[in-house]
């Protein structure tokens, strides 16, 4: 559920960009940060290594405006995709209201995508979250490769629900990035509504 802060009269939703290493999670966030008008966004925090791989997380807040007297905010996070940062990923996923799974469309990364998706559902489960009723958008990123994983293949092997929102993107150019953000944000809002007593 979102964090309701009566002190500051704000309602904060947390969206996490999850996926294997180098799939484009930070690139998504960087594009979003560039695209959104200054008055709506806070500074971006990037914790990376010397090789510009995400070390802990990237983060920035978006302030959407006021709804029923509450300032509505979305905090966007990425996780470190490298396999050995499992503990960091679990920490960042705690309290998430929705996830964008950024898959690498490169055919050679198929197994990495599957492995990381399964890690994600395991982590969500450890917090008592049922991944089948949790807001998730599957983003097939890097669609500019010559040979890409066909849409539907990840969903099939992972046995994902038919109504799971799926997008295609090229995060380096921004294609599909804002559409993905819109989708997950709306999924999160709708889920909150359905889960109104949460």
């Amino acid at each position: 559920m979102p964090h309701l802060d009566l002190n500051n009269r704000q309602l904060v939703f947390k969206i996490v960009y999850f996926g294997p290493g180098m799939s484009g999670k930070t690139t998504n966030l960087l594009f979003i940060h560039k695209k959104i008008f200054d008055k709506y966004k806070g500074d971006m925090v990037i914790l990376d290594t010397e090789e510009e791989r995400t070390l802990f997380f990237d983060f920035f807040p978006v302030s959407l405006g006021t709804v029923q007297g509450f300032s509505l905010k979305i905090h966007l996070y990425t996780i470190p995709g490298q396999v050995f940062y499992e503990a960091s990923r679990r920490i960042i996923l705690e309290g998430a209201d929705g996830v964008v799974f950024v898959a690498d469309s490169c055919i050679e990364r198929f197994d990495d995508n599957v492995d990381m998706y399964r890690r994600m559902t395991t982590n969500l489960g450890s917090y008592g979250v049922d991944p089948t009723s949790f807001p998730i958008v599957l983003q097939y990123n890097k669609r500019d490769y010559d040979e890409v994983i066909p849409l539907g293949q990840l969903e099939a092997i992972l046995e994902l629900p038919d109504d799971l929102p799926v997008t295609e993107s090229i995060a380096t150019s921004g294609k599909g990035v804002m559409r993905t953000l819109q989708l997950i944000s709306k999924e999160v809002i709708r889920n909150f509504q359905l889960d109104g007593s949460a």
Partner: protein
Amino acid sequence: MNESVVTGSNGASINETLARLVEKTEALTALLISRHGICLGQAGGGARLNATALAALVAGMFSATKEVANIVGEEQFSILLQQGKKRHIHISLIGEKSMMVIVFEEYSRIGRVRLEAKKCSSTLVRLVNQDRKDQEQAIQDISIPDFKEYALNLIDRIFVIGEEEDASP
């Protein structure tokens, strides 16, 4: 990003408690942060700090430290101390779901900081727990259909899908 502070429920009490602590310790600022990285209260000269980013980072740091504690056979480290050249940070757990961050300059005041942090801890735990009850009530008072409509409109207006959608692969 503007973050207007409107006093509500126990907000004033949390901020007042933090303000008294700042006064007694002569700290620069004190913040109460949720385990999920949300700033719940603030006192002192914190306006010059990016409280939103600080809250996210400190929460992450504290969670990471919990994992470290588990590895060495501890359940949790209840206090973290970061010593800098000019400024230092004292972080302490407040109950199970919050933490208090105190930023101070003179390191010789560390004893005072630790003492006052410990003294106001139980008060803050009580206020946070009361806040949680008030929040459950406040959530009930939100009109969900109206909330949905406004929020979805805001998303369409601010997360604009632009010309990059036409970029060819």
